[in-house]
Every structure is written in structure tokens, then in C-alpha cells.
């Protein structure tokens, strides 16, 4: 006589109710999985882009609450930064999110300082790189090429100016693959922000230690009021979009968990009240109240675990689906780490235990003779 088998049979005797509860749990878990994978993936993808560029520290305006850090005039701070110990290169970068085609979603347009290390990690697939800071051409990532249906030699209109596509590149970071890149000077002119950048990327020499990095950060804070030097990880985690998407994923975890636990609670309460007489029989046969608790908790945990497994699969499908819709392409890159998925499974079981706890205790307190009198 196997308690888990008995619990399983008790669930299958009410297939409609079990399926409904299972679906509710699965949907909640799917929402948790999809939103969290997107939020974390978003962060990881930006992080990857910064790491691939070889940037050690980023200098930006202190109060960057927008999706992009606010632009500032690069030459006001660049000379000071170059004087700091271990700083080898200080490179300007201007990022914009612009609509470049009516039938494609808004896209990232990056202006990168010509002749800087930023370009080094990109791999040219077709065409050529810009030849000088004044070369008014665009290179586009493979995903951008696909989304815009452009190839080398075509033109793309940015802020009313038609520019030729000089080449197509590939990057290890999804955000860059979906982006358009021009020499910094060109983006400054197109967007009417002469001399401005929204971040300065610092590359340090190989001898720089973490203490040196901390020292540089402190120096920037002390000598350049209104600016901060932060690592790319810090920049990404402070980014408004990353913060909003993380907050949304946290809120989803909370709400979906609460709803899940309530759904299980309700189902198990219904189930035990239907089975009062049976529970009375179990107690009359000498079942310890603890065993009754184990039975009911096994039922609810089994229900939520199954819902969790289905929900994870559904969540992964949902994320993959979202990654492929036009509006989202190149902007989300779902991150499904095994520890995260295990944590979600753990969460499902915890929901079952929490939701089943009160019904289980209630069942264990059934008064056997009164339960047996029930019709």
C-alpha cells in the first residue's frame, strides 16, 4: 500500500477539477518562468555586449533614470579620465533607439568612436567597415539585416537621411546583432547632439587590480561631480528597463504564487470536504492524524509539481514565441538557467505544501464518529 499511489488515485478520480487546478498552476508558473527568463536574459545580454567589447569601467551621468543614460559632452570629462592611473583608452559611445523603417520595430542605433577598441570584437560577414570618422555609412548586425531585409549596398533612412549599408557584421551579443552601428560623429550629427555621448567606456591596462578599479571609481566621484564610474554589470543592473522588468518579474512571482496557493487551497478544501466520510474511515482504521496530513499534502504537492513541470515547459515555449515576434526580436534573449528552473520546481512544491497545509490539518482533525455518520 503506497501512500503516493493512493494520493495520485485520489487526484485522478476528479479529472475535471484536477485538470482545472493544474492549468491554473501551470499558467502561473509559465508567467513566472517567461517573465523572469526575459528579465534576466535582458540583463545578461547587455552584460554580454559590454563584456565582449572589453570595457572595464563605464563613466556615465549620475542620474540616468531613462532607458538610455543621458547624453553629455565627452570632451568635458575625457581629458581628466585619461589622467587617471591604469586608464588606457576612453572611448565615447552614443546609443539611441530609433524607428528606421515603417514595417520594422524601433531599433538600436549605436554611434561608436571610430578607431576604438569597441569595434574589435565584431566579425565582418559582408562588405566593409567605415573608413573614417566622416564616413557616413552604416554597418548592421545579422539580425538587423534580417529584420530590415537589407543587404550591403542598400540604403537605410535614419532621422530623414538616407545612408548606405557598408557591411554586415556578427556579434556574440544579441543586442548588437539587432543593432545598426555608425561612427560616433555620424550619430552625433544625425541626432543633433554634437560632441555628446551617453557613456564613456574605459579600458584599463592589464596590471589594474580590483583595488585600482575601486580607486578610479572613488576618483571619478570626487573629481567629476555628477558622474559615476561603474562596471558594466552595475550599469546594466541600474538600467531603468532592467529594473522595471525585474520588478515586474518579482511582482509576477509574488502574485502567481499567491494565486497558485489559493487555487490549491480551494481545491484541497473542496476535496477533503467531499471525502469527510472516507477520512473518518481512515481514522477509524487506525491511521494516525499525521498520516492523513501526509496524504493530503502529497496530493496537493503532486498537483502543483505537475503544474510546475507543465508550467516550465509552457513558459519556455512562451519565451521562445516572444523572442520570435517582430516587435521583440533582438531585444529579448531568455535565460533559462538550471538552478532557476529547479528553484521554480521547488516553488511549485512549496505552493502545494502551503496551499494544502490547512486542508490537511483540517482533515486530520476530522471527528471519526461524526464523519462516519455522514451520508
Amino acid at each position, binding site marked *: 500500500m503506497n501512500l503516493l499511489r493512493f494520493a495520485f488515485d485520489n487526484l485522478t*478520480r476528479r479529472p475535471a477539477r484536477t485538470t482545472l487546478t493544474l492549468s491554473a498552476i501551470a499558467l502561473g508558473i509559465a508567467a513566472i518562468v517567461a517573465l523572469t527568463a526575459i528579465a534576466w536574459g535582458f540583463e545578461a545580454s547587455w552584460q554580454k555586449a559590454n563584456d565582449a567589447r572589453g570595457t572595464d569601467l563605464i563613466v556615465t551621468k549620475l542620474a540616468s533614470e531613462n532607458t538610455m543614460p543621458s547624453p553629455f559632452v565627452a570632451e568635458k570629462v575625457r581629458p581628466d579620465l585619461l589622467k587617471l592611473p591604469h586608464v588606457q583608452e576612453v572611448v565615447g559611445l552614443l546609443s539611441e533607439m530609433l524607428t528606421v523603417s515603417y514595417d520594422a520595430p524601433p531599433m538600436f542605433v549605436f554611434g561608436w568612436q571610430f578607431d576604438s577598441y569597441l569595434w574589435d570584437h565584431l566579425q565582418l560577414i559582408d562588405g566593409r567597415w567605415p573608413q573614417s570618422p566622416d564616413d557616413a555609412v552604416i554597418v548592421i548586425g545579422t539580425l538587423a539585416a534580417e529584420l530590415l531585409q537589407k543587404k550591403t549596398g542598400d540604403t537605410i533612412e535614419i532621422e530623414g537621411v538616407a545612408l548606405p549599408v557598408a557591411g554586415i557584421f556578427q556579434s556574440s551579443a544579441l543586442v548588437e546583432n539587432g543593432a545598426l552601428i555608425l561612427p560616433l560623429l555620424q550619430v552625433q550629427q544625425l541626432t543633433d547632439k554634437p560632441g555628446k555621448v551617453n557613456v564613456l567606456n574605459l579600458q584599463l591596462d592589464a596590471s589594474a587590480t580590483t583595488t585600482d578599479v575601486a580607486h578610479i571609481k572613488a576618483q571619478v566621484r570626487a573629481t567629476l561631480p555628477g558622474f559615476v564610474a561603474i562596471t558594466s554589470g552595475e550599469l546594466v543592473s541600474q538600467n531603468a528597463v532592467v529594473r522595471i522588468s525585474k520588478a515586474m518579474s518579482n511582482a509576477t512571482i509574488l502574485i502567481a504564487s499567491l494565486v497558485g496557493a489559493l487555487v490549491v487551497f480551494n481545491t484541497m478544501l473542496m476535496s477533503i470536504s467531499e471525502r469527510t466520510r472516507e477520512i473518518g474511515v481512515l481514522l477509524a*482504521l487506525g491511521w494516525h492524524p499525521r498520516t492523513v496530513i501526509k496524504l493530503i499534502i502529497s496530493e496537493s504537492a503532486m498537483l502543483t509539481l505537475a503544474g510546475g513541470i507543465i508550467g516550465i515547459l509552457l513558459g519556455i515555449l512562451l519565451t521562445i514565441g516572444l523572442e520570435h515576434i517582430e516587435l521583440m526580436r533582438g531585444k529579448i534573449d531568455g535565460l533559462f538557467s538550471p538552478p532557476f528552473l529547479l528553484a521554480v520546481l521547488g516553488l511549485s512544491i512549496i505552493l502545494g505544501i502551503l496551499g494544502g497545509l490547512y486542508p490537511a490539518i483540517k482533515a486530520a482533525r476530522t471527528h471519526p464518529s461524526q464523519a462516519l455518520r455522514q451520508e
Partner: protein
Amino acid sequence: MKPLSPICSVTTSTPVLSSRNLTLHFDQGRTKALNGVDIEIIEGEFVAVTGPSGCGKSSLLNLIGTLDQASSGELFFRQQPYSSMTDLSEFRREQVGFVFQSFHLIPTLTTLGNVLLPTVGRAGDHNATARATALLQQMGLESRLDHFPSQLSGGERQRVAIARALINDPTIILADEPTGSLDSENASHVLDVIANMRLRKSLTVVMVTHDPNVAARADREICMRDGKIVTDNGVNL
């Protein structure tokens, strides 16, 4: 199965069960289900409890089986007061076997699963399935092991319930109208099984019944009225 003579089975005279001035009240004392019951049952006895509806027969059985708690008075199991028992579920599991009028089998479990129910959570019980199979064989149910209750006749269901009551080798069988839902042929078969098992396992049986013919199968008949015992084996108290 040939009914065996019941008288010869009383081997010892120690009371396995006794009670002193037992009462059970409901609705803040307005209903007196039991109103001062003194009883002594000898190990191995087969006792029939009779009396009109509502006289307290089931109440007495429930108190003996610890499904209810007495309002006052005391019950003893082998001289040990019930009030000193620390684990009532263990007492029910190890010493008592219940048989009910409406069988109370679990519909999702097979014959074997139902019989094994009282062994759940019993530490170190490794041969439960073998015991259950043997018991069911003795009751002529060897071909019904994997049937669900809905696939069994009334008589078969009650025999499954009896096997379930016997699985942990209890001391006492408490049967509340075990033949109440059966036709006379099935009833007599079930009674044969009870009488037979009782002798094999030297069980004490307390059986509630309306039917004088059924009561006649017992060694002793206790008749109740208004929560009290009025006659014991024909003797007025």
C-alpha cells in the same frame, strides 16, 4: 463453511473490555446516547448488542473503538483505563477492527488496497501484502484481489471489509450491523466468516444487530434501551 460451535471458544475469564458508569451526551446533555453503562466482556467472547433504534448501540461501539470520547465514566482495555492511552490511533490500528453496515470501502482502491489500508504507516510491517492475500483467500475472494468495490457484490464487499478489519490481527472486532445491508443468504455467509475467523484468531467480537436470528449466533446477547443495558443474556438487570 460450516458454522462452528461458539461456546467452546471462551478460554479465559479475564475481561478484555469493561466499563464503569459510562455516559455519552450530545447537544449539551439534552441527548443522552448512553446513560450509565456497566459492561464486562471476556476475552474471546462473541457478544451481540440489540435494542430499538436510537437506544445507543452504535454509541457504545464508538466509545469502545475510541471513535468518540465518553462524557463521563471510564472504559478499560485489559484493566488499563482508556483515559491513560496516549495514542488512540495506535490502539485502533493494533487492537480494534471495525466492520460497518455500509462497508465503507474506499472506491478508488482495489480489494487488496482496501485490505492494506490499516497497514499504512505501520513501522516494520513487511509482509502485509502476503497476510492480506492469505486472508482474502480464506474468505473466498482470491479471484477478486484487483477488483474495485463497485465491481463486487454486497456480500463480497462486506467480506473485504472483514479482511480489512483483521489485517493487523486485532484483539476486538466491532461490527455495527454487519449484515444490515445484505440479503439473508449473504448475511449468513458473512456471519459464518466472522464466526470462523473468531475461532481461528481467538477474537473478541462485539456485534450490533437488529435481527434476532443474527443475535442468536452470538454467545451472549446484551439488550439496550434508552442508553442503558436492560438485559444481559436474557437476564434482567
